[in-house]
């Protein structure tokens, strides 16, 4: 009897949670759809065309869509390929050898998460640009290159920025798998007469491929939805679907066209996500099949040389741009063509100068990102618990089937659609509410996935042990499961804060005038070519997200 009541309560909780998450995630999409289709109706009336969706299809600039789609796919593909080529050697080195800087190389995986794209863009401009640090350094050796126009604002510039921004993901994800793949199958192949290469193909590659495919899938999706980088570097050579959506919304107010772009974008993304989830399943199986990590070896001879060369390559081409942010933040340009000095002038101007934007931006960032992180945590926590209980009860298959795909929604739908959806819901007035809600919708699946994974990592025998010692199911849950997942909840909050604090897409899409967050300030200063002040603001933003991320990695995750 008691069991039945508990079961009924559980089901009730599951359905309420599910409704809440559905409303929270889907309402902006429904709102956008309603406005976009309504907008379509108005156009149709005025042009006396047939008021159906087919009229929209006729109005669609097919060549623009095809051009944009081709460009999106091509740049994502090439960027992924380049990121993998840079990341694979790093993954091999970190999975096999013990060397100075190994942990730092793995820690670079945090960069895409704690340094917002806008900051990395700024870093690349300052480093690779015509007047950049690298160009200046090269000029010292090879003399000034008058014809050099820089390559950043080209297809290859865009691809390179994407590759360098995302290669640490490849290093981290592939190394995590590689370090666990035992050598025995490769050794077995060698004892059977296979050469080193063939033995690798037989004994290691089949296990490694899911890891490579998983990293490639993630990087491809990130590049597919890339917005700020394409907006800055891709202007002359092409636009992605995400940028087209932004332009249709911001400059043409053509919601129907934005919807068409979004539908195409989401269709492709869903296809990618489906493939990715399958690959992830295989990668997780590989991880489960193998036990503990291998012991790292000390590099010898050519291996040491390769490590040194790779280290220099990463330092010059990847860490260099990030260091340039710090240098430029403290470089105070002279107004009368005098010598440049180093000091805190840029920070002073941002704090005490005209409009003193920095304190306000810091405050807004904390206010909005904090609120979004809290909201995302609540939604993520509820979703993960609902999913976990539904899986555990093994009777309710509806909840997992719905929450599973919902978790991928932010990776499949343009953030512009979420942002505008919330804007429409708040009757076009309260942009700050839309900002918080849209960012929370984007961040909650990260929280949910992290908490869900940690719930699954709990050994069910500990709960059973608590029950055999007399604890009720609720007490067993509170004392064993909840206590175990608390660090991962805290970690998820920190992660949600990091990604929302660094997000420039949503505030930029909403075109918010009344508030200015740090990423928005950074974007504004960069657009105004006030690079040194932008670097100062970027350094503050990087420090905030970096410290939060470090806190998550070093304190909470370790706990």
């Amino acid at each position, binding site marked *: 009897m008691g069991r039945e009541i508990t079961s009924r309560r559980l089901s009730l909780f599951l359905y309420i949670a599910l409704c809440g998450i559905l409303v929270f995630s889907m309402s902006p999409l429904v709102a956008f759809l309603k406005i976009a289709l309504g907008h379509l109706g108005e156009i149709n009336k005025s042009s006396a065309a047939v008021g159906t969706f087919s009229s929209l299809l006729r109005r669609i600039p097919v060549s623009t869509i095809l051009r944009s789609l081709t460009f999106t796919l091509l740049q994502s593909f090439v960027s992924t390929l380049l990121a993998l080529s840079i990341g694979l050697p790093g993954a091999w080195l970190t999975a096999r050898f013990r060397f100075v800087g190994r942990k730092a190389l793995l820690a670079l995986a945090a960069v895409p998460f704690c340094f917002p794209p806008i900051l990395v863009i700024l870093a690349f401009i300052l480093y690779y640009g015509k007047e950049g640090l690298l160009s200046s350094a090269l000029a010292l050796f090879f003399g000034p290159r008058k014809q050099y126009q820089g390559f950043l604002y080209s297809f290859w510039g865009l691809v390179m920025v994407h590759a360098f921004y995302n290669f640490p993901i490849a290093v981290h994800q592939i190394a995590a798998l590689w370090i666990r793949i*035992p050598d*025995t199958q490769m050794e077995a192949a*060698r004892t059977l*007469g296979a050469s080193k290469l063939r033995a690798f193909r037989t004994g290691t590659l089949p296990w490694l491929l899911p890891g490579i495919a998983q990293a490639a899938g993630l990087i491809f999706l990130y590049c597919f939805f890339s917005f700020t980088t394409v907006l800055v570097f891709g202007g002359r050579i092409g636009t992605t679907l995400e940028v087209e959506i932004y332009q249709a919304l911001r400059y043409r107010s053509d919601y129907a066209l934005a919807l068409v772009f979004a539908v195409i974008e989401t269709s492709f993304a869903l296809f990618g996500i489906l493939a990715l989830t399958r690959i992830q399943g295989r990668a997780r199986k590989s991880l489960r099949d193998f036990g503990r990590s291998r012991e790292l070896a000390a590099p010898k001879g050519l291996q040491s040389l390769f490590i040194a060369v790779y280290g220099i390559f990463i330092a010059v081409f990847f860490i260099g741009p990030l260091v340039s942010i710090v240098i430029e933040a403290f470089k105070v340009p002279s107004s009368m063509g005098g010598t440049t000095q180093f000091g805190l002038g840029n920070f002073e101007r941002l704090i005490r100068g005209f409009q003193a934007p920095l304190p306000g931006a810091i405050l807004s960032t904390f206010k909005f990102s904090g609120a979004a992180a809290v909201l995302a945590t609540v939604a993520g926590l509820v979703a993960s618990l609902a999913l976990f209980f539904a899986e555990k009860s093994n009777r309710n298959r509806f909840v997992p089937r719905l929450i599973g795909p919902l978790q991928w929604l932010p990776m499949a739908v343009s953030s512009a659609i979420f942002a505008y959806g919330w804007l429409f819901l708040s009757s076009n007035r309260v942009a700050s509410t839309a900002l918080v809600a849209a960012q929370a919708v984007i961040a909650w699946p990260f929280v949910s996935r992290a908490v869900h994974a940690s719930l699954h990592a709990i050994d069910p025998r500990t709960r059973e042990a608590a029950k055999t010692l007399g604890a009720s199911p609720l007490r067993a849950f509170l004392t064993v499961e909840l206590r175990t997942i608390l660090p991962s909840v805290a970690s998820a909050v920190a992660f949600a804060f990091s990604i929302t604090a660094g997000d420039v897409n949503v505030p930029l899409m909403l075109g918010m005038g009344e508030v200015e967050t740090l990423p928005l300030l950074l974007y504004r200063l960069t657009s105004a070519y006030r690079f040194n002040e932008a670097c100062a603001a970027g350094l503050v933003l990087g420090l905030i997200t970096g410290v939060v991320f470090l806190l998550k990695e070093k304190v909470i995750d370790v706990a």
Partner: protein
Amino acid sequence: MSLEVKDLLVIRGAFSLEADFSLQSGRVLVLLGPSGCGKTTLLRAIAGLEPIQHGTITLDGARIDGLPTEKRNIGFVFQDLALFEQMRVEDNIGYGLSVRHENKKHIHEKVLFLARRFRIEHLLKRYPPELSGGERQRVAFARVIASEPSLMLLDEPLSALDAPLRREMRRFIRRQLAEGHLTAIHVTHDVEEAIDLADEIIVVRDGKMVGRGGIEDLEKNPGSGWLARFMNLGLVLPVTKISPADGLGPAFEVRTIAGTVSYASPEGGADVSALTQKACLYVPSGAVASAGAVGTAKIKAKVVRSIRNTLSVPKLVLMIPEEENYYFELPLKGDGPDIYQEGTDIELSINTRLCQLLPEDPPLCL
């Protein structure tokens, strides 16, 4: 093919392994020792999977220590079997032949022949994850045999199996090795397995070879109390005092924790005067008679368990009351009297002429 390992040294961090032995063609050598003693490292060094500091490895008169693994023609059965999970059973077995670019028809015929011989014909189209533990063992063994190796190295391939299957696979392996006249080294920490498979045993401890020979040789002369205890060869009693006995001849009074024994140094036993380190008295199983029998010394013991059934050799599990963590097994001759109730204190008569006074730890080098 005969194997000769000479003056071999392998260093892995703080651990070092030394080996020097030879193995005649068609014989099975078992490397026996506790976990972490260096048995697997020795196999890996012979296969070329572990770099060696110095020494030579010669297979049928030809040095192979300078060759890469794939050129040594050595068959290695790994502890986890290392089957290629993404390949069908037939491709696993034929792998060694396909890397040598043998023609497909020949590969197919050979795979089929081996599959019949190993009774896995019905599994050829399956993948390794679909096989049972015993089937996986057979596939791994067939895969190695297919390449016609000059030497077989078996690294505890039975450790993951349950007891009945383990016993079955032991017999299977022994039969296959004998039928193929294969030279093999088998690694295990299980004494029963070693006795079952070996023509010759080498006992390894802390990277050193501390015992060598057939099981009878080792039983007769274990060389150290540690080895006798590890292989459960008999009763090993820590010695507390050795003093010259009154009377004639080179006799000693050896005081052990379980009683005092009058001891005359026999052939094969250590020179008493040379025992500078901790000593122990080794009493082979054959030197122990049950209570009531006539003997020259009596040892106090307690019956922990009396095993008498039709499935195994009747035996007593005994403990010395003064040393609670030391148990030893005593085979019973015939049914034995009914006094061996669990918990009963008994006295064992021992034939001191068969006893040996040995150092507790094995000498550093054999």
